């Protein structure tokens, strides 16, 4: 698992790579919450490099989503691989999150 944060316009883009599972979900949560806690409230998760996620990883997305809603911020996801999209569909997360096919459309959407 690898997490990388860059600024793009008004957004902070968090790129997630590799696997997010129970062995590293804690680490993932810590890295992401650092961004959230720094007061940034426009976040896009670029998941193009994410190739495995389990319930432990999904829970971290849920935690971030709750925090962002409380902060009246914006959270978007983009570039999910087909296998990850499937997991989001199965878990019902697809309807909880705003998901975009690519980073460009995520940034442009209001």
């Amino acid at each position, binding site marked *: 698992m690898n997490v990388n944060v860059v600024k793009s316009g008004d957004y902070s883009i968090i790129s997630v790579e590799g696997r997010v599972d129970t062995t590293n979900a804690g680490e993932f949560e810590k890295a992401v919450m650092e961004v959230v806690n720094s007061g940034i409230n426009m976040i896009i998760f670029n998941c193009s490099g994410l190739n495995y996620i389990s*319930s432990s990883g999904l829970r971290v997305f849920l935690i971030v989503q709750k925090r962002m809603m409380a902060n009246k911020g914006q959270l978007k996801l983009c570039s999910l691989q087909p296998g990850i999209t499937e997991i989001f569909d199965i878990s019902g997360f697809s309807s909880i999150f705003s998901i975009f096919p690519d980073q460009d459309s995520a940034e442009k959407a209001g």
Partner: protein
Amino acid sequence: MIQAVNLCKSFGNLEVFKDLNININRGECVAVIGPSGTGKSVFFRTLAMLEKPDSGQVYINGTDITGKDVNINKVREKLGMVYQGFHLFSHLNVMDNITLAPLKVKKMNKSDAQKKAMELLTMVGLTDKSLSYPHQLSGGQQQRVAIARSLAMDPDIILFDEPTSALDPSMTGEVLAIIRKLARSGLTMMISTHEMSFAQDVASRVIYMDEKGIYEQGTADQIFKNPTREKTRMFIRKLKVFSYSINSRGFDMVEMNVQIELFCQKYNIEPKKVNYIQLVLEELILEVYGDSSINLQLKIDFTIEFSEERNEILISFVYDGRSFNPFEAAEESEHLGMVLIYGVSKNYGYSFENGLNTININI
């Protein structure tokens, strides 16, 4: 092309094989499989006269090479061998490794030998490494050089003895690709390997060695899908089943997942399904250990079996402790992990018997 007649070999009291007979035709690719210690390497070494048979003959193109008056160097020109370890000369660069035998044994002139070496390096995709030394190459690259080196003698047949088993799994593909290419080009070869999908792909014949000789042989489909004899069946079945044990909550899941990936690679299981397998197991493990009323030292054993006929993965997940059915628990409250398991599996079942919980899942 190459024929063994009543070949016998023992070491002291240990009889490795006896009265072994085989006839390999030009252009055949014969895969040799079997449990460790059944004599695959000794068989190859005996064919190459690196071991002296106790009795019996080996013919190459009609010439008996077991005779006393046979020039063994001439034999080695006809028969190349590639080993598990790469056996390159560490003090020679790639070019010199490849040209050594052609220069010394075949008395080729230097420029011809080097020209030929470059052609072979092109074939194995290593033209830019001709001046490198073995220690500067990856294991896969070293093995490709070893293949080029044995081809440099223009052998009639090459024996590959587990050419990929000493390699890091990430490198087996590049070596197998070259061997596959050689097989397709019509080179006669024998290869001992545990890579079933590879054997299925390229071998015109598969030989299963056991009980001091050739125990069963047939096409790859016959041996891998429909073996007829008891020991072959057992061996093939074991190859197809992956087993893993977990003894405590603190086990190494990263290592477990690496093992699962290696197993799946052997069967060309698509990445999506590999993810499903890992997901189901991760979620089950979390459910079972997450149930706080369960002893944290409880033991989990699971197996993964790939059924080619049904193109299905069967997972059997067994744990001790009190009876605990995660499917029931999931009905009482929302369990994200169980939702994922339902989503990716075709069937699932739970039973509790003799103190053991068993979950079967088909993917």
